[in-house]
């Protein structure tokens, strides 16, 4: 093989701490290397042209570029060698920037390491084979998991683009957390008034199939051709028949079921429609509280339902949908503030979460929009807001900023003053994070126009005194301890990953961070993609986000899918496992370990059993190769011989 080596200086990024000229000179000593040079910016247009010129001039059959991480520019250089007539897999990259020049200033050691990395890349390249991708058709349907505002926006945008959308929501109604909010910052417009029309649109679009009260059971396949099983949870009400008239809810004798939509500030019936604007507006039976299920008698709803929709024998149902791309928009959960013993650990009824206060403020909430204390229903006069509850606090495992709390307490304080002009609002805060458009002005308005008292400092303790609460904290600006007597304490509870996020990630084969938020492909340049092709992210499942950002990401994910679906076929990655039938002993351990179900067994004409890889399902993880005892199954472009060549070079 005739190999050319191009050592990039990356300006001074590499050349500053690596003698790139020496690396290039040394490369000429390696077997099969016929040309080596050092270049200032190899990824630039002239740099790529230089590679192409040398391929033709020197009759090169393989190219090594020693530069940055292959995650950065491997596709760039693969395209470059392809333009010069080489197969794109006759190219290797040695990472001498992230792995060398950026991590040490010892030029001599760096140069030595760069030489070794280049030598390894050359050694591997000598075993490379041209690989070719195949083309498979794209199924132009989209699965969207989660129908909060991000998922709804993505669904509507995909639908407007003419795509078939399958929208899966685990709750009985779409709308997510935004449906629970009263007003939205910084414009104080009514949350359900701006979300409601979108929810109605979602229900009315003919190309959106909505599965509410459903969860994704399993995901198989790959970009362009996913097969998804969806579990439709038993609601014990035939939703095809149910008209949402609500008669069953009114007559249901079981009145102690938790009202999760109202954050458990009130009780719901055992058969319930979560809120008046619910989409779909259908009743659901809570089995744990229904007298038919708990005591075996009742049946009131069944008797009075005018359309005979009640079905106590209903079972979960699994439906299969085939889609080409998936948007994950599973949102967030609220931090459980009961871990803070100093704030009462959830024992004081008048110490409530931010979302509970949101429900209290809402006209459709438990108190009809009148601000009352949950304990005795009296109107509070002094209200204290405590910021950063479950945010920026490593001691509870939540060192990150939830991003939305500063804004929502400012909003809630303003609304409180609107509702109760004579009330006093206090906000204990660490810092104010208000970097959005018109956000800081909004907080200033709360402070200056509405007279909300902002106290910079952490609250040490909340304890009851009579029927009121005492909030003890520090005012770090004045350097004094302060004590505020309050009727109601609102905790600015932070954002955490939605429960079950990790399990869903495993099904989708996407990665998540230590807090359970899904990992984007690149924090700056690929914020919507995941590292699994065909799976995209929208909204707070990727990290705490407010409504505008969630909506923007929902639209962005939809745009990504429109781009993906603009093609009719998709090229498969040839870097997958391949079985050498001559050495396969048919033990089929590869099938047992394959996480993707990409391997099956087949029987040859002589009766012998062999493994067979479904190239379009294989993700190239290499578990089968590691497991195969005779190493009959090899990962293309990372074969044992290629890796051994690198190791032998390094250890020689």
């Amino acid at each position, binding site marked *: 093989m005739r190999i050319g080596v191009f050592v990039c200086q990356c300006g001074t990024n590499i050349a500053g701490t690596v003698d790139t000229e020496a690396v290039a000179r040394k490369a000429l000593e390696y077997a099969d290397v016929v040309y080596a040079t050092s270049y200032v910016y190899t990824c630039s247009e002239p740099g790529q042209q230089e590679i192409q010129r040398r391929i033709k001039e020197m009759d090169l059959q393989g190219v090594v570029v020693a530069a940055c991480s292959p995650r950065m520019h491997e596709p760039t250089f693969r395209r470059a060698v392809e333009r010069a007539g080489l197969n794109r897999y006759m190219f290797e990259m040695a990472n001498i920037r992230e792995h060398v020049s950026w991590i040490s200033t010892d030029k001599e050691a760096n140069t030595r390491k760069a030489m070794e990395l280049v030598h390894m890349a050359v050694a591997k390249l000598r075993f490379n084979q041209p690989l070719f991708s195949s083309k498979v058709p794209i199924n132009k349907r989209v699965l969207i998991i989660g129908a909060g505002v991000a998922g709804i926006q993505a669904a509507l945008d995909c639908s407007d683009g003419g795509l078939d959308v399958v929208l899966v929501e685990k709750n009985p109604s779409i709308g997510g957390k935004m449906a629970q909010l009263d007003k939205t910052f910084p414009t104080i417009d009514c949350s359900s008034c701006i979300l409601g029309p979108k929810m109605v649109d979602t229900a009315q679009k003919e190309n959106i199939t909505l599965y509410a009260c459903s969860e994704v059971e399993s995901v198989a396949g790959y970009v362009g051709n996913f097969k998804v099983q969806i579990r439709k949870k038993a609601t014990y009400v035939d939703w095809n028949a149910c008209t949402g008239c609500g008669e069953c809810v009114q007559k249901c004798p079981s009145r102690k079921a938790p009202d999760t939509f109202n954050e458990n500030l009130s009780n719901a019936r055992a058969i319930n429609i979560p809120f008046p604007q619910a989409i779909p507006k259908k009743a659901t039976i809570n089995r744990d509280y229904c007298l038919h299920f708990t005591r075996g008698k009742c049946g009131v709803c069944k008797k009075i339902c005018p359309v005979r929709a009640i079905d106590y024998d209903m079972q979960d149902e699994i439906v299969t949908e085939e889609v080409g791309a998936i948007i994950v928009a599973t949102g967030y959960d609220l931090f459980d503030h009961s871990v803070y013993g100093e704030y009462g650990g959830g024992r004081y009824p008048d110490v409530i979460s931010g979302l509970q206060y949101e429900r209290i403020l809402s006209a459709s909430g438990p108190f009809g929009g009148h601000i009352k204390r949950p304990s005795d229903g009296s109107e509070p006069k002094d209200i204290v807001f405590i910021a950063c509850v479950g945010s920026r606090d490593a001691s509870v495992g939540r060192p990150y900023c939830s991003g939305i709390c500063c804004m929502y307490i400012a909003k809630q304080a303003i609304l409180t003053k609107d509702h109760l002009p004579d009330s006093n609002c206090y906000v204990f805060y660490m810092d104010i994070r208000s970097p959005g458009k018109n956000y800081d002005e909004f907080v200033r308005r709360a402070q200056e126009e509405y007279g909300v008292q902002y106290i910079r400092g952490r609250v040490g303790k909340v304890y009851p005194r009579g029927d009121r609460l005492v909030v003890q904290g520090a005012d770090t600006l004045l350097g004094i301890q302060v004590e505020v007597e309050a009727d109601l304490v609102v905790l600015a509870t932070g954002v955490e990953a939605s429960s079950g996020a990790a399990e869903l990630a*495993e099904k989708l084969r996407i990665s998540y961070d230590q807090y359970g938020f899904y990992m984007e492909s690149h924090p700056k340049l690929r914020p919507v993609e995941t590292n699994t092709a065909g799976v995209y992210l929208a909204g707070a499942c990727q990290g705490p986000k407010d409504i505008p950002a969630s909506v923007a990401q929902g639209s962005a994910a939809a745009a990504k899918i429109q781009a993906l679906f603009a093609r009719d076929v998709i090229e498969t990655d040839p870097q997958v496992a391949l079985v*050498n039938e001559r*050495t*396969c*002993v048919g*033990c*089929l*351990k590869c099938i*047992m*370990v*394959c*996480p993707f179900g990409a391997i099956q067994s087949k029987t040859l004409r002589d009766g012998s059993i062999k493994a067979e890889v479904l190239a379009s399902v294989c993700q190239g993880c290499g*578990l089968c190769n590691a*497991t195969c*005892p*005779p*190493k*009959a199954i*090899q990962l293309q472009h990372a*074969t*044992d*011989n290629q890796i*051994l060549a690198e190791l032998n070079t390094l250890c020689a």
Partner: protein
Amino acid sequence: MEASATTRLHQEVEASIGRLSTVLGWGAGYDPLHMTPLFVRSPEDIARLVWNPLCVQNLTGYLVKSPGVQPPEEGKKIGICVRGCDSRSLVALIQEKLISRENLYIIGIPCRGTVDIRRLMNESGLSNIRSVRIEKDLLIVDDANGAHNLPLERFLARRCLRCRHPNPVIHDVLLDEPVTPRTTAEDAYRDVESLEAQSLDQRRAFWSVELDRCLRCYACRNACPLCICQNRCIAETRDPRWLTQRVNLPEKFLYHFIHALHLAGRCTECGECERVCPMEIPVTLIKEKLNQITRDLLHYEAGLDPEAVPPLLTFNPAEAGI
């Protein structure tokens, strides 16, 4: 008691041979010290079956490796005699779907241990051994000079001294009353532990001396019932080229560690690799170490539950211990 066990074995096989296409057992070999695998295909061969402490071979490999037993005839099964250790190999093979439980008729033999024949041959004062049997803690050896009562512990194979499962873990029929295990689970890895108590240099020296004797004859691999690659073994292939045929210590090391790693979480510690080694290298120790890790990290013991999935033969992100 072995004599009665042999009689019972004959009775059992006579009763069941009509339903079996072959019965794998042991028979007399070329001298009274050596028993050999015996494939019984017709009733007249039943009398040749024996069971005594010299029946040292694990026969389960013949179910999956060539030259082995033919697949059973329609409607029939394969009979196989197993000791406790062999039964665990069967379980492992069943788990890996290399054999099917339905095709087997398992004749279980509670085992009080097998003899390390090389040690017995080296014992001075014995000549022309005629028979060997175990009675309580004694090994009774009949030779030209009459009966010798020898301490059993001295002549048991190492694998038998550390045996936790002398009674077959699966069987269709059990030939004898269950026997008490010689070792508890806690003591099972004392050989590994005493080796590990040495310094790194001492251990390196130990293995250098031991493994340098290796001839790469592959007897250990060939005797292992779970090493089923046979002529496709990567110790001998050039593609991929993990090993060369060069005779040096690193290549020998690499061979033995590949062998052991291929058995990680699978090895049932039947000890065949060590028994057949012509150079008497304690190669099972390497597998014992891996099994100890498997036990401590993954809480798994190979070859006990046919329904269990060996920990390295699955992909489970929620795996405990990782």
